[in-house]
């Protein structure tokens, strides 16, 4: 398999060298993944390297025809009108042609399974695959690179604007292996434009609490003047332990707009690493997480400003109920040559219970002198004054709470540029808030 063999070997070595991050790891201090693997039958060291390949006959099996029928039905629940008309379905990382439909793709758009791309678009893969996510930087990147079986490959050719949103349905089922590595590669050539929504959902007969660990990695490459909107919707994934890494490279005058909305999942770690490697780029990173029970959600972001005249804007918000825990770690690097950078970051959290906790850590490292950077973070309970004000006007405590929380979340949701997705997200969020408030 040419370049893959040595790459996988190197990745495995890198993983073994780093090991699973434990409590001593600075990057995983508040999200110790050791416990996910403890007692489980997952011993990464024991997984045979040679058995893995970029092939559907690798670790994950394609569902049977019967299962496909069932899945098709189950997936209707996650359809978003105005978004899902063009959809790609991945089941346990395996691209399922039969459930996918792309009626509105203009010429120049390539969408296929990553495994398939290896034979059909080999030179593209050789050029880009694993060139951005550094196996030495994070053990989960290494693990993914060593084992990933399949995923999605997308390329939008130079100058092509994809008018319709593409919906990636990222489905995890009971059949997923205990440690599932899946991988996407999305390539925007010069001046290409596309909107992508990725929904992660669990379709399961039973609730496999704490069984699966999904380690997914997406490499997104934005060539000059391209524009990508990339929305991660993590909904309906009860029982899931997820490490989701998005590695982005931005070239000159590119525009990247991303949202990470986490409404479900047991243990969720979102890594978002953006390298802005050229001038006049624009980067927007927004996140919203609403947690309950003993859920854990960790958002780690990194914006690496390497060149001058760029702008980044970040807004993350969390609403934590019950005994749930949250982490926000937002790093912004401004390298020495990166003058005239505007970088803003804001992180706000509302704790709905005394047992919920959040760890927030903004990290600004600025080595250039002519920059405008700011960050702010706040954590607190619902504003008592505002609650009293609304109740004194006749609103029930429940309605007042709902209104304040909804308004809080709206700051993030309102920045979703795809109208039907915004409406859909609003709907999901109000349902979830209703649930938390009525308790």
């Amino acid at each position, binding site marked *: 398999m040419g370049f893959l063999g040595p790459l996988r070997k190197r990745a495995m070595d890198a993983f073994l060298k780093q090991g699973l991050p434990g409590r001593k790891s600075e990057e995983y201090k508040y999200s110790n993944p050791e416990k996910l693997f403890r007692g489980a039958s997952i011993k990464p060291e024991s997984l045979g390297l040679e058995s893995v390949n970029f092939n559907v006959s690798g670790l994950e099996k394609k569902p049977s025809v019967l299962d496909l029928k069932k899945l098709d039905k189950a997936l209707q629940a996650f359809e978003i009108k105005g978004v899902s008309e063009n959809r790609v379905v991945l089941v346990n990382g395996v691209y399922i042609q039969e459930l996918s439909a792309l009626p509105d793709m203009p010429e120049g758009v390539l969408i296929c399974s990553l495994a398939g791309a290896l034979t059909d678009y080999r030179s593209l893969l050789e050029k880009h695959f694993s060139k951005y996510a550094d196996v030495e930087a994070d053990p989960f990147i290494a693990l993914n690179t060593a084992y990933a079986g399949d995923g999605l490959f997308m390329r939008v050719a130079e100058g092509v604007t994809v008018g319709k949103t593409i919906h990636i349905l990222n489905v995890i089922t009971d059949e997923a292996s205990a440690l599932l590595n899946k991988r996407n590669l999305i390539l925007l050539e010069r001046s290409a434009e596309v909107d992508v929504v990725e929904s992660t959902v669990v379709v399961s007969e039973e609730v496999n609490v704490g069984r699966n660990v999904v380690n997914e990695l997406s490499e997104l490459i934005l060539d000059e003047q391209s524009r990508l909107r990339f929305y991660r919707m993590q909904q309906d994934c009860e029982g899931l332990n997820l490490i989701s890494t998005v590695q982005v490279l931005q070239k000159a005058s590119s525009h990247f707009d991303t949202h990470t909305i986490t409404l479900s999942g047991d243990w969720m770690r979102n890594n978002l690493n953006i390298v802005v490697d050229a001038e006049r780029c624009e980067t927007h990173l927004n996140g919203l997480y609403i947690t309950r029970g003993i859920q854990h959600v960790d958002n780690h972001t990194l914006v690496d400003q390497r060149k001058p005249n760029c702008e980044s804007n970040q807004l993350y918000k969390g609403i934590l109920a019950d005994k749930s825990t949250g982490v926000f770690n937002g790093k912004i690097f401004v390298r020495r040559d990166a003058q005239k950078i505007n970088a803003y970051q804001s992180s706000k959290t509302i704790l709905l219970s005394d047992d919920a906790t959040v760890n927030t850590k903004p990290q600004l490292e600025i080595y250039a002198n002519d920059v405008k950077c700011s960050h702010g973070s706040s954590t607190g309970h619902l*504003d008592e*004054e*505002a609650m*009293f*004000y*609304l*109740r*004194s*006007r*006749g*609103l*029930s*405590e429940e*309605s*007042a709470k709902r*209104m*304040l929380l*909804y*308004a*809080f979340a*709206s*700051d993030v949701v309102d920045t979703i540029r795809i109208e039907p997705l915004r409406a859909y997200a609003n709907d999901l969020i109000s349902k979830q808030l209703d649930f938390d408030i009525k308790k």
Partner: protein
Amino acid sequence: MLSIKNLKAGIDGKEILKGINLEIGAGEVHAIMGPNGSGKSTLSSVLAGRTDYEVTGGEVLFNGKNLLELNPEERAREGLFLAFQYPVEIPGVSTINFLKTAIAEIREYKGLPALEAKDFLKMVKEKQALVELKGSLASRAVNEGFSGGEKKRNEIFQMAMLEPTLAILDETDSGLDIDALRVVANGVNKLRSSTRSFVVITHYQRLLDYIVPDFVHVLFEGRIVKSGDKELAMELEKKGYGELTR
């Protein structure tokens, strides 16, 4: 309408109201005046149901109901309204938006049919005109970036929308210039009726030139030390609180 008997309340173990007695009849306007720190805001907060304060004695009957047993929203639904001295800013929530919900819930509480959207909007227009509130303000986040005068007008606008039977205006005049004061007072005067009572809390007599009270009470160190008619306010203006509270 409202009957306060020997009301005692405090905060953190410190007694602030030391036995207030006050009877307010339907359609009456009562002014409560007093120097800073006498307990005026505490009284309005206790009546509206702010939980920071602890009631240690006495009773308050509102249209025959034990007011102190009700939570803030129930008091509002029973017809009580408090215009805040310092209206809060609420990002992301517009006045129109929460009023719609508030009115729906109040009507449900009273067993009235829901208000139709067009009737609600008509009402909004009418009441905005009453307090000369720009339409755009009511659609914006509550009080966010409003001037002092706009905030107070927004309070009176909400009062007009909610049609209370008893409205407490807590230092509504503070921070207003004379023009804004006139607009606010005008709005209040238009809402006066034989079934609606007002408690106007103020430090200065100035507001009472515009909202002419039926009764004036002087609050001092947690007690009403003197009551009279509007002449009492004039007297206070001339002589100051010193003599009366001695």
